[in-house]
């Protein structure tokens, strides 16, 4: 990216910033690399702020068709010295998230790891993948003499390998490189719509352990698979600028300040990672269990971190140059107490949705399910929520169950369902809970909004879910508000959605991780110093807001009616008396909330 603004106090002109884009037509196997002037600040910041502008201009009716572009890009701060500036974004129309009209919604999914930094260090900011290859291919991006060099290579040798095995195979051919790959689920794209893209990490390449990071939401691995694109390679020497004192201060705040306390270890003044949500949510009986239906029977406590410390070695590890160390990696404990083989990474979402929400409470079973989903290359949230629905349905219909008849807690049969989804033999699971529940005719307990499965927060605690544009919790910051504050007033929730929650997506333009916990002043400081973009905070926030609203605008363009901005109907009709947070989301409340939220958003969307 080149910034031609003078930077001498004159106003910032986005068109004087140029980014480098490679457009690849897989059918023709042609590649065009060009420098593109930015049209606005969202283009400069990157991520979905840029990619959604391209998707807004496309007419796509089938996410698996060749005319669905797959956009792979970075944010302004990806590959910079700002701690957590590691994000890569995958954007496209989603095979999973779709309106009732059948049209696919646009989505993006983000992951850390080091692929995005390496890609940026080759000189490339964005790849637009068009068409469908007639043979399995991979894209190789390298540092050339006068800019990025992009080539296509055969990928037949990678077919059939699991995510980690693909990455390790590529490492033998490409030194000083990082990788983005699909697993068996992405290869089975016609049957699995929630396939993820796995990105390599430094730790993975050095240790040989399967420690990928995942762009999971919305089936971006499925889109990759549909294009016969099996992998991407970014090969470049590390290129780090000298660390400015201001950035050093920002990084110190990220790694030791209050914004990341939750994710750090106790010996770093932290609370131990997202996993520690288990005991907090269980205080309210708001921890999803048995398809989002907490039982308040104490069984979930068996997977509290404190109860696993004796059985495993739990080691906090980190992404490249990140001081937060949010990865809580589980290792076998040897007889002498030392660390044995790597087992899995325990985060809140996968551990809940692939274990407690499926009635699985044994740690040995939990890590196997978490790692199975990773190795097959699927989104833990969508997979777990869909399997949860199957188990729930089977419990309600013991005489005519779905598939293998699995019910809550039946580990072996649950494992079969996950394998079936990931290997393409059970499309009923792999195509997601919205489609499955429409087929069964029992939609009330299908835990999705707008076709995308819910993360591990109960729908009856979050009326903001329907306005999340690419995943219920990471793109609308209202998912913890009720538990945190207990406020049930209309005014509170309208403001929570329209004035605060949408800014959750700020980091999805910048290239930074939400776990950095950067306040707005820190973020604008990083943009100014390390991004080299001299803009005021209000301009940054306005760009974030426009980008978010564009997400809603694309949804409406893709056929979403206002009635689809709702919750699973059981959230209204079958409140769980075990949950101790206030029960307040009646149909009347929600109808008024819808009206008031759209009164704010609709004029702004019209003015985009």
């Amino acid at each position, binding site marked *: 990216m080149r910034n031609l603004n003078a930077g001498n106090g004159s106003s910032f002109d986005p068109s004087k910033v140029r980014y480098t884009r490679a457009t690849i037509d897989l059918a023709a196997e042609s590649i065009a690399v060009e420098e593109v002037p930015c049209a606005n600040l969202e283009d400069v910041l990157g991520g979905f702020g840029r990619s959604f502008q391209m998707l807004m201009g496309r007419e796509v009716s089938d996410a698996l068709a060749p005319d669905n572009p797959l956009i792979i890009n970075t944010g302004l701060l990806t590959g910079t010295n700002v701690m957590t500036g590691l994000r890569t974004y995958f954007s496209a129309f989603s095979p999973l998230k779709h309106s009732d009209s059948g049209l696919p919604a646009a989505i993006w999914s983000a992951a850390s790891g080091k692929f995005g930094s390496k890609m940026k260090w080759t000189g490339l900011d964005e790849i637009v993948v068009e068409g469908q290859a007639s043979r399995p291919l991979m894209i190789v991006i390298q540092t050339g003499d006068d800019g990025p060099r992009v080539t296509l290579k055969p990928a037949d040798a990678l077919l059939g390998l699991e995510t980690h095995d693909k990455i390790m195979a590529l490492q033998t051919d490409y030194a000083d490189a990082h990788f983005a790959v699909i697993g068996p689920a992405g290869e089975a794209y016609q049957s699995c719509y929630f396939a993820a893209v796995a990105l390599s990490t430094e730790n993975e390449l050095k240790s040989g352990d399967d420690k990928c990071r995942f762009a999971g939401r919305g089936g971006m691995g499925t889109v990759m698979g549909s294009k016969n694109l099996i992998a991407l390679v970014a090969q470049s020497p590390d290129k780090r600028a000298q660390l400015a004192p201001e950035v050093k201060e920002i990084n110190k*705040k990220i790694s030791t*300040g*209050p*914004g990341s*306390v*939750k*994710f750090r270890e*106790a010996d770093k*003044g932290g*609370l131990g*990672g*997202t996993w*520690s*949500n288990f005991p*907090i*949510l269980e*205080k*309210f009986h708001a921890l999803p269990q048995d398809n989002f239906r907490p039982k308040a029977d104490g069984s979930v406590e068996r997977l509290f971190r404190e109860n696993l410390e004796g059985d495993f070695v739990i080691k906090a590890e980190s992404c490249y140059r990140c001081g937060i160390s*949010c990865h809580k990696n589980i290792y076998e404990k040897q007889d002498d107490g030392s660390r044995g083989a790597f087992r899995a990474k325990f*985060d*809140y*979402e996968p551990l809940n949705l692939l274990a407690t929400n499926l009635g699985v409470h044994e740690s040995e079973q939990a890590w196997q399910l978490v790692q199975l989903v990773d190795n097959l290359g699927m989104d833990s949230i969508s997979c777990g929520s869909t399997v949860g629905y199957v188990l729930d349905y089977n419990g309600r219909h013991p005489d005519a169950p779905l598939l293998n008849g699995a019910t809550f807690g039946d580990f072996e049969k649950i494992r079969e369902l996950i394998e079936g989804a990931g290997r393409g033999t059970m499309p009923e699971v792999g195509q997601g809970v919205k489609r499955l529940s429409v087929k069964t005719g029992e939609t009330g307990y299908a835990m999705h909004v707008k076709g995308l499965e819910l*993360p591990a*927060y109960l729908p009856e605690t979050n009326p903001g879910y329907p306005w999340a544009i690419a995943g219920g*919790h*990471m793109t609308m910051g209202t*998912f*913890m508000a009720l*538990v*945190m*504050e*207990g*406020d049930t007033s209309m005014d509170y929730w309208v403001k929570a959605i329209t004035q*605060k929650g949408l800014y959750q997506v700020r980091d999805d333009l910048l290239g930074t991780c*939400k*776990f950095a*916990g*950067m*306040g*707005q*002043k*820190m973020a604008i400081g990083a943009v100014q110093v390390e991004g080299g973009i001299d803009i005021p*905070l209000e301009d940054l926030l306005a760009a974030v807001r426009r980008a978010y609203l564009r997400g809603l605008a694309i949804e409406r363009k893709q056929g979403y009616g206002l009635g689809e901005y709702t919750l699973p109907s059981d959230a209204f009709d079958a409140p769980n008396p075990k949950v101790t947070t206030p029960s307040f989301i009646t149909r009347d409340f929600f109808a008024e909330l819808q009206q008031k939220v759209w009164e704010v958003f609709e004029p702004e969307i019209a003015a985009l």
Partner: protein
Amino acid sequence: MSVTVAFPALFAERIGGGDAMELELEGETVGAALRALTERHGELTSLVWRPESELNPVMAVFLNGRQLRSEELTTPVHDGDKIQILSALEGG
């Protein structure tokens, strides 16, 4: 006693700040200092306290880097002590 109460952007944004903040407040105990915080900034009351005057169970409180249990809010403080309060619930 004069103590520093530190809190993250989640709190600061409610009282006009854009980033983590620290305030100097008076109080004889940890709980009293937190009361002083919410008396000065009523917008923070629902984050810090439950209606029954108990600490919000979602919040984590540290005194000089040591995490306190909710029943330890009666811990006396000394001039220059640092109290930190933040949400123990985060997504991921």
